[in-house]
């Protein structure tokens, strides 16, 4: 079966530096692919290249069965493959949460009532409907990120590209994010340094290093060790040593 999104020997330079040098990558339907690599390896650039925010100097970007070159080509790609930016403030530009979630569907040509109903339905499905009328820039960091995710899901994408999605999430919101992602039908491409998150979610992993992509493994070892945990003084569990 052909991939939803693919890079074929792609080379991309940013600011005079070659970031991707003949990188290959495939994202298939139903897959949750982890993209790992050191800081500055070009993970974000790779995501941006897939939706046409960076143009390769060599190689091909193939999305949904066709090679994509121009801004018009990528317009159709962006309707089906959604990118989550690292900083939620870049993404949430509408005054209120519901406006922001409805923004994408409206751009897809949905009627106003439909778009808002769809936005509300997504917020409800993700358990975020209480935020609907909040002003976006007054949300907490974790809430902002979850609202961003809702805004992308409202586009009913076939693929979601997430750049550090668990940044600034507390335990509760992080668990929520994982729960939401595991229930999605869309293929996921995950860039993260959060090993535990990747280990729980990813079905496959690749490593980006020195501009090329190679297969990798994300797996869990059983390790017996002391665990640091923090809770309030009214913890419901007992400790062995009182």
């Amino acid at each position, binding site marked *: 079966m052909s991939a939803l999104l693919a890079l074929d020997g792609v080379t991309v330079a940013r600011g005079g530096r070659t970031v991707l040098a003949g990188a290959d990558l495939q994202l298939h339907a139903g897959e949750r692919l982890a993209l790992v690599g050191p800081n500055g390896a070009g993970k974000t650039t790779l995501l*941006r290249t897939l*939706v046409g*925010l960076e143009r390769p100097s060599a190689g091909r970007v193939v999305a949904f069965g066709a090679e994509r070159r121009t801004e018009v080509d990528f*317009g159709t790609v*962006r*309707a089906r493959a*959604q*990118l989550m*930016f690292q*900083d939620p*403030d*870049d*993404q949430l*530009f*509408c*005054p*209120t949460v519901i*406006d922001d979630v*409805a*923004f*994408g569907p*409206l*751009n*897809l040509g949905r009627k*106003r009532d439909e*778009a808002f109903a769809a936005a509300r339905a997504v917020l409800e499905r993700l358990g975020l409907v209480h935020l609907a009328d909040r*002003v*976006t*820039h007054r949300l907490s960091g974790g809430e902002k990120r979850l609202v961003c995710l809702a*805004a*992308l899901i409202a*586009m009913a994408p076939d693929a979601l590209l997430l750049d550090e999605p668990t940044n600034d999430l507390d335990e509760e919101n992080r668990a929520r994010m994982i729960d939401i992602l595991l229930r999605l039908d869309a293929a996921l491409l995950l860039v993260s340094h959060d090993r535990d998150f990747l280990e729980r979610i990813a079905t496959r992993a690749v490593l980006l290093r020195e501009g090329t992509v190679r297969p990798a493994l994300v797996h869990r070892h059983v390790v017996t060790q002391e665990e640091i945990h923090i809770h309030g003084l009214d913890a419901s569990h007992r400790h062995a040593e009182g």
Partner: protein
Amino acid sequence: MPAALGAAPVRVSFGIAALDPRTRLLGAFAGVLAVALLSSLWVLAAAALGTFALALAAGPGTAALMRRLVHLEGFMLVLLALLPFTVPGTPLFGAPPFVASAEGFARAVQILLKVNACGFLVFALLGGLEPVRIGAAALALKAPERLVQLFLLVVRYGGVLRAEAARLQEAMRARAFAPRASLTWSLHTWRTYGHMLGMVLVRALERAERVSEAMRCRGFSGRLPASAERPALGAADLAFALLLAAAILAAFAAEHLA
């Protein structure tokens, strides 16, 4: 003050909060236009008094009104100090080449009254509105879409940029930076502020690029989705429009008779 608790949330006003944002926006526009066309000092003084009363009645309290006014009156002071000396006419006091003219003084008072009347009116009508609703109302009134987009983005990102600048300043202070408060700042102080300003600008530019990219990624093609719910105008809107029209007509009539 336990006695006040029960009555706290309801604020008595002339019902400006009950008006549709479109009415308020149009009212402010009509009022400001009328004030701009008036010239008699007495009529303008009456307009300033009337709008001041309106602002007091509608506004978020005297203290907040005064805080907003401070910004305005700073400019007015400069005007009041300079205009009498720059408009030629009957000398009032001073010695050449610095002579204050009666005409200049009258002009300064006229502008002072006009600006204050307009300011009061805008505070009264628009001060209590969320910027979002002002934007929606402007769109509903067929204001240029680009202008409304710009307005809403400024509202949205002004805070983000301010927070960024504040973080930079905190980081500077955390590394023991203290601006030299001498008459001429030290070169280091100037250079540091230069760097900070440059950094704020560069980051704002980059942020603008990322925001635009994020919008394109969600299919944005240059048009904002139309504004939210648009209820019909009510009796309050009609009453307000009639009152305002009567006040404006009265002001012009008074000016003609004077």
